[in-house]
């Protein structure tokens, strides 16, 4: 019964019967959009072309423009490559992304409820602190001490070292504060309070059902960001226990001119994201647009 649609992005924008006027798409508009989509899709198409060819084809001039028939064989080569540990990388990336997403969404939903609907001393200052830290590139600033902490904990080489720092997500807290503020009427919380519900129960029975769409948006975004991150996993993981991005990097570093090998690995690494994107495209776009207007 619950649909995942985010409110703002999917709202009807124009009233019916309004004259078209300046809002009609001109041929120029259509050309701009068509060219954009071609440019957006081309590198992905190119990935498929090269990944399904041989290295001989890849270095042809003029280059090939249609997919060939070697995709299966190339994927086999990636999976059996002794330097990439590709399947380990894929599994690690999945575990990391799922763990980070689940925790970030939960932590943010808790904090968002407190900031949006509970009054407490210092709340506004704490929220301001979140906004300020969102602007600081913590990952890059603190990379040296963070790394040394991981060394002394003995976590280097383990995916724990990747998961823990990613649980810190100011944007998530900000987003869920906004969402709760808009999706959960104050009267509802008050009413539940009068009826004797505890704070935790209000969170579970009143807030949680109402903010589920916001959680979905945050979840999808967090999953994509975590899946794609590169610098930190490159530092704290070893090539024999990589994330998928680090695995591609190993291929790239060792087999620089073996294009079909690298492209096949790359293609496989983005497939999960493309699937998520096609399934939840409407929510992702809605969430992005909503977050932007509020910021």
């Amino acid at each position: 019964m619950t649909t995942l649609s985010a409110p703002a992005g999917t709202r009807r924008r124009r009233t019916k019967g309004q004259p078209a006027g300046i809002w009609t798409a001109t041929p120029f508009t259509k050309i701009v959009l068509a060219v954009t989509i071609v440019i957006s899709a081309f590198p992905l198409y190119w990935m498929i072309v090269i990944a399904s060819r041989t290295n001989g084809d890849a270095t042809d001039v003029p280059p090939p423009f249609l997919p060939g028939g070697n995709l299966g064989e190339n994927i086999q080569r990636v999976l059996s490559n002794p330097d990439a540990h590709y399947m380990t990388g894929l599994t690690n990336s999945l575990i990391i992304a799922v763990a980070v997403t689940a925790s970030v969404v939960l932590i943010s939903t808790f904090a968002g409820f407190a900031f949006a609907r509970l009054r407490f001393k210092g709340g506004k200052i704490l929220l301001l602190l979140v906004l300020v830290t969102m602007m600081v590139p913590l990952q890059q600033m603190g990379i040296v001490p963070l790394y040394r902490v991981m060394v002394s904990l003995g976590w280097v080489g383990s995916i724990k070292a990747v998961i823990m720092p990613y649980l810190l997500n100011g944007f998530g807290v900000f987003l869920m504060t906004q969402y709760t503020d808009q999706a959960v009427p104050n009267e509802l919380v008050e009413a539940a309070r009068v009826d004797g519900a505890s704070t935790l129960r209000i969170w579970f029975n009143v807030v949680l059902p109402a903010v589920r769409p916001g959680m979905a948006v945050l979840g999808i975004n967090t999953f994509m960001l975590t899946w794609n991150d590169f610098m930190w996993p490159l530092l704290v993981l070893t090539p024999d226990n990589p994330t998928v991005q680090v695995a591609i990097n190993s291929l790239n570093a060792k087999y620089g001119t073996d294009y079909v090998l690298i492209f096949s690995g790359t293609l496989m690494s983005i497939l999960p994201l493309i699937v998520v994107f096609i399934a939840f495209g409407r929510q992702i776009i809605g969430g992005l647009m909503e977050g932007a207007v509020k910021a």
Partner: protein
Amino acid sequence: MSLHVDAGQPTRAPVPPDRRHVRRNSPRSFRTWLDLKAAPYLLVSPYYLLFLLFGLFPLGFTLYYAFFTYDLTGTVEWTGVGNFTGLLSDSAFWKAVVNTLGMFAIATVPQMLLALLLADALNKRFKGQLFVRMGVLLPLVTSVVAVAVVFTQLYGRDWGLINWVLSWFGADPVSWKTERIPSWLAIATMIDWRWTGYNAIIFLAGMQTIPRDLYEAASIDGASRRRQFWQITVPMLRPTMIFVVLNSTIGGLTLFAEPTTFYNGNVHGGTDSQFQTVSMFIFEQGFREFDYGYASAAAWLLFLLILIGSLINFLLVRRIGGNK
């Protein structure tokens, strides 16, 4: 706070609160206290705990490290501001700064203009809106490493598609990796390919909050569409633009994955460091040379750079479209 913005109706009917609980007025004062006073703090505590551990603590220690010299043998020595003065007279550091700023400028200016143009097009009425928006956003879903791998091949000197196209116009093959400005251009296109659509979607969201009667009034007054775009859309978009530009500034000045992948996963940034960014410099100093102090000092200088860059861009954007 200025955080409240109305954004549509709540999406689901609330669950009726549980009525089994009896009113609380009895001696359970501790539980009442816990529920009313402590609960908000408990709810926000996980975030701040993590912030303390993985945000504030490393940040503080970065500053502390910056005053020491570390070397491969494990010797640690106090140097005061030695790392900072060393960096300021280190030509490799300055090269990285210039590279970072150069790539940032080459990438950002066209990106903003293209994103504005694209957002304006997306704001028109046409069929298949969701499909088009998804098409525009497709690059964002692709991982940075994947983008860099594909573009690196496209920019290949001998067999790359780009040089092949350029050869139609009689151009000699460009050595995108070894020459400084071409390498910046190649990396800038990777950034723009990935982020222009995203920024356009953000601009679009901003455009949709501009009251439509402004345009209707302008049309009646005979203002052309182009004029309306520059005189209404762009000035009204200023808040969104500030958000987008600040985001791009932070992202652009901390650039790492694209140039690293462009040089096959090496943080040196080309044979002559011609496209090494400050982030790569920090990584190299910290984890290839193991001079933690030098790297930490560089991290603080990067932060300073981001602050200055953000401030300048903020002031620039605020002036866009006059001071109406």
